[in-house]
């Protein structure tokens, strides 16, 4: 799967209250949540997003609460994936579980700039900055997590195992 879009750059320690403020947690609909994606840091963010755009962030992306609404909101606003230096652990689990592609790649996260055109080969973990003509390799996912992704997410894997 090839993901392609413009980069939206964020700093370290972006928390889930910034990704989706609690006042919107009365909904579980990804599209509705998506309209308020990143509302806690850039009000109106979703209006500028084009389908496929990519969030590029620093360390500890998604820290704070366990709300699965955070990756759901990112997915719901048509962001294709998140590239970060590192992810907070509950956000990492949630993204895999709901099928939001995430890539841990400090080099890419540091050198990609706002607005750069980026292409990601999701199965290879290969990140290309088309604007700067540079390529980076994301950290491979552990085998078991690959298995979850290949099964189509955690719930499909659970049903299969039952």
């Amino acid at each position, binding site marked *: 799967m090839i993901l392609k879009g413009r980069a939206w750059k964020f700093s370290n320690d972006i928390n889930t209250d910034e990704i989706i403020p609690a006042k919107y947690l009365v909904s579980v609909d990804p599209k509705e949540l998506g309209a308020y994606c990143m509302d806690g840091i850039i009000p109106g963010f979703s209006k500028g997003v084009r389908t496929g755009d990519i969030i590029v962030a620093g360390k500890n992306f998604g820290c704070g609460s366990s709300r*699965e609404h955070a990756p759901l909101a990112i997915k719901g606003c048509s962001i294709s994936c998140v590239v970060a230096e590192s992810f907070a652990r509950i956000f990492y689990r949630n993204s895999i579980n709901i099928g939001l592609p995430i890539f841990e790649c400090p080099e890419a996260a540091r050198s990609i700039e706002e607005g750069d055109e980026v292409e990601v080969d999701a199965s290879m973990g290969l990140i290309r900055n088309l604007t700067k003509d540079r390529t980076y390799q994301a950290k491979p996912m552990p085998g078991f997590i690959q298995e979850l992704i290949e099964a189509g997410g955690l719930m499909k894997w659970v049903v299969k195992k039952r």
Partner: protein
Amino acid sequence: MGYTVTEKILLAHTDKRSISPGDLIECKVDLCLGNDITAPIAISEFEKTGVDEVFDNKKIALVPDHFSPAKDIKSAEQLKILRDFARKYSIKYYYEIGCMGIEHALLPEEGLTVPGDLIIGADSHTCTYGAVGAFSTGVGSTDLAAVFIRGRIWFKVPESIKFIYSGKLNKWVGGKDLILYTIGDIGVGGALYKAMEFTGDAIERLPMDDRFAMCNMAIEAGGKNGIIAADETTLKYVKETAKKSKKKWKIYKSDKDAQYCEVKKYDVSKLEPMVSLPPLPSNAKPVSQVKNVRIDQSVIGSCTNGRISDLRMAAKVLKGKKVHKDVRCIIFPATQATYLQAMDEGLMEIFIKSGCAVSTPTCGPCLGGHMGILAAGERSIATTNRNFIGRMGHLKSEVYLSNPAVAAASAVKGRIAHPEEVI
């Protein structure tokens, strides 16, 4: 090679003979938890699979504490999803309003979290139960849905950081100050993916409520879990609380030759009450260095500091005083039992006479839900756990974190203050 207390509990819940940090393992779950924000997604994921039974209706706890009593129609609908699911599957530990308390204060009080347990919850502050010597961590809603079906969950075995606290704590200094200080030292990502094991003579002397406050905020340093190995203080607490649940426990302690990725030593004998400045819990400073910060609101409660000893500490400061005319002080006893005990001890009278509002248990303003939302430009001191931008309301409002004595003293003074300025 020896094991840490975290590794021992994880190992005891797998089919394996040995584990090491970094291993991906599957563990049996003793208790799983969801609330009115996270459980509706879990329930919807569960129902989508077509599975029509839960793994064990006595190992699921559902606590409608975030937006309840319902703050609006949409939250009423979320609450109804929990209620309907609890009835359909005869979930034993569903707590309706009236019995309900803030989940992380309620479940230990009900004796549902005991030493040696493996507990997961779709709430990041599930790490609170490490205070009773359990392994306990927050996950997401889909993880919870999978546990509803399988009763098992995958983990990466975390490396452990050992924190050693030594020295006698000053008056007005407790678990909240220790953890704010610690997060201030290591940062909000300082324990990312790791177990935080709290030890030392200062921890040995620390009462249970303070231990809960410490473990509660392990997540604010990115930790997978916070844990204090069970000791006599824990046992005294668990013997009382487990009378109700009849749960059995098992005590695990770290081996002498256990491996830690890092050891942090703190002399806390000179520690002052701490205040974390917005917008991160890691911006921790001694209260004496936080000068002339006017406040509009003081929130005393939450899963961090809404227990009886927290209310006692606030009452000690507020007794015979008046809340400043420019401040709203709102008190949230964490559970019904805490509420009742506070009444019996005369704390409620102190609060009301001093001009505080007292609420039924709810997470309320901690996450900007209801019952004390801030307008643009307003500032609150709070005994809660997060001071992120907009956490308690408008993006241009601010939250300062502290212990209950500092929050009470600040309510009286109208600015952030040391309790000694009021007493």
